[in-house]
């Protein structure tokens, strides 16, 4: 194993441990201003959206916001499926079906 790769792995590990566990050192008697804490409560939902959204509209570096984009169709289908039947497995399976089917139909 190359030393450089091992050090890179350790760097990524350090970045993860610091961000995940570091805040656990904070004294609970120190509390954030209520307004900031209230705003931070929205961060997880926003983070999930910011992670997922680009995946539905980019193929490589090309932005494609059209109804001939199979990934976008799958994302729309998944939203509708979850909003109506509230099943996560149906959302994932249904979304992938729409993705593969529309790709086949569009000949991509």
């Amino acid at each position, binding site marked *: 194993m190359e030393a450089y790769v091992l050090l890179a*792995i350790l760097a990524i590990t350090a970045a993860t441990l610091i*961000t*995940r566990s570091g805040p656990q050192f904070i004294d609970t008697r120190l509390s954030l201003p209520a307004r900031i804490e209230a705003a931070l409560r929205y961060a997880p939902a926003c983070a999930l959206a910011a992670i*997922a959204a680009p995946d539905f509209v980019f193929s490589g570096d090309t932005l494609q916001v059209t109804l001939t984009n199979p990934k976008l169709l799958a994302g729309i289908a998944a939203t509708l499926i979850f909003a109506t039947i509230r099943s996560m497995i149906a959302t994932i399976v249904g979304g992938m079906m729409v993705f593969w089917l529309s790709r086949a139909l569009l000949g991509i």
Partner: protein
Amino acid sequence: MSVSERDAFLRGFKDLWPSSPGIFAWGLVTGVAMVKSGLDVGEAVILSLLAYAGSAQLASLPLIAGGAPLWLILLTATMVNLRFVVYSVLARPHLAHLPVRRRLWYGSFLGDIMFARFLAHIAREPLCPHRDRYFFGGGLANWIVWQLSSIIGILMATIIPTSWGLELAGSLTLVALIVPLCAQRPVLAGVLVASVTSILAHGLPMRLGLLVGIGAGVLAAFCAERVAIGGSAGGRR
């Protein structure tokens, strides 16, 4: 561990289960990507077990392949992981009664999906006991599914065709986590703004688009909440 503590742990573990197909697909894709970018099987397994941070790993792979300086890899992984700081701060009061070593241990299991589940659980049952055990149950289930799928991905990297587009399943899992949260108007505003902003800022280096998206979304949600409060009978303040 008392009976009720074990129950809370098992509930956390079980509640994560419906998300496991999405986590599995995501882990599989990350495993495949690590090997396809040039890591050998041993390196990929060590990276998966030590870092356990899918998006940070994926963001770092092109940097490692290109021989980028270590400080840039550290900085990039930190930027991508910055959302964990917020999660950890939000989790802190729920773990407050634990000794510091256990808090650090539990904190290291933080992840997007297990934390979304945890927040949904405490929103449903604000007074539930042993939420730290629930947190750890979900965190452990998430870890197991992820490592299993990631290692399968590493071993099968040469067999699974990229053309299947399996990585989309990970994003579909996130959709199923986001939609129920959008029942609250401010969250809906935040999610929409975060989505559009992260798409517009996608080209930024070090995956900074993620951070810009989160920042814009939080701000939008906060403003939407102010507007909602201002509009309802003079507000609370």
